[in-house]
């Protein structure tokens, strides 16, 4: 199939698709005139039934917890796929890569930011069911602070911090803990991942029952998943660097 023929075919079918999509969104309720009952119900249920003030976290870690478990394993298997594709036998990183940041000011500021960012990430994870945030968002911030070590220092410093077996372990523990919390619900005689534990008082860290545990499990799994992604790509980059230098 020639390129121009393919483009022509795409033009015709995209025009058709555009027409269908516009027709279908025209059937939606006008923007801002929300009609579904679930959002309204959940907004009050999250506060009354679960004592959490972040309704999104209540949906992610409780009402739709089972879906989130599925999502967790999508992330898990995607990272596993990246590791399978890119990882060779090198648990402790590549030798002979010289990419150190020379500027002292940049190193100092970068590493100071990495510490602050790590704290921010942990804070966002911990308060996930009270204020905006949660295991997923906070986990990404924690992973970013590890990546900042690479940007501010060098590959060797990053690799000393993000040792593959340790990160693999955290990743497995996070994803596993999520699934195990669901089993605890079963043992208590309720549905899988049904909330358990004391609900505590709204707006404090001690609230939301098992949402807190699921939240931390997601935070562990997500931060380790993203650190692993960075590591695999950085290893690849470092291996190329080391090869061209020789």
């Amino acid at each position, binding site marked *: 199939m020639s*390129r121009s023929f393919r483009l022509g075919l*795409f033009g015709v079918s995209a025009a058709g698709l555009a027409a269908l999509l516009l027709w279908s969104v025209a059937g939606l309720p006008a923007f801002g005139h*929300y009609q579904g009952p679930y959002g309204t119900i959940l907004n009050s249920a999250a506060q009354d039934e679960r004592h959490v003030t972040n309704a999104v976290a209540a949906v992610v870690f409780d009402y739709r917890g089972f879906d989130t478990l599925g999502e967790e394993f999508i*992330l898990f298997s*995607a990272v596993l796929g990246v590791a399978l594709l890119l990882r060779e036998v090198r648990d402790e990183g590549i030798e002979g890569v010289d990419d150190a940041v020379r500027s002292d000011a940049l190193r100092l500021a970068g590493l100071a930011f990495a510490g602050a960012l790590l704290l921010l990430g942990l804070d966002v994870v911990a308060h996930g069911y009270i204020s905006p945030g949660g295991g997923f968002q906070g986990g990404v911030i924690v992973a970013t602070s590890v990546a900042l070590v690479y940007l501010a220092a060098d590959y060797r410093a990053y690799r000393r911090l993000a040792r593959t077996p340790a990160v693999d372990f955290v990743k497995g523990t996070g994803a596993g803990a999520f699934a195990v919390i669901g089993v605890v619900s079963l043992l208590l005689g309720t549905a899988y991942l049904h909330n358990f534990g004391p609900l505590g008082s709204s707006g404090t860290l001690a609230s939301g029952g098992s949402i807190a545990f699921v939240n931390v499990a997601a935070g562990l799994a997500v931060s380790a998943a993203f650190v692993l992604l960075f590591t695999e790509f950085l290893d690849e980059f470092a291996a190329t660097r080391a090869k061209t230098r020789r």
Partner: protein
Amino acid sequence: MTYLPYALAVWLFLVGLYGVVTSRNLIHLVVCLTVMQSSTYVLLLSVGYVNRATAPIFADVPKGTRAVDPVVQALTLTDVVVSVAIAGLLLALAIQLQKHHGTVDPDRLGELHG
């Protein structure tokens, strides 16, 4: 104007699809795919939006305050995570293709053998 956010979602989807179809580089293709996927964020968040309502966070607003739908926001969160995971997987595949076949041009992949 009340349908503008939906139209934006349709536009993002189509412009991303155009990029995917015409792409000459797999890295560029992955970026186009993430543009396509962002259309779903816009669509989901628009569907759940409520006029003159706050975010579904009730830490510092009185009980019963009108808020937007938290379900679509949670779906968007899932969507973002999946999007990043898939982008990472596809980029790893692109690296392997470059290593073994020396090309990331999808049009030249048909010529490859073994």
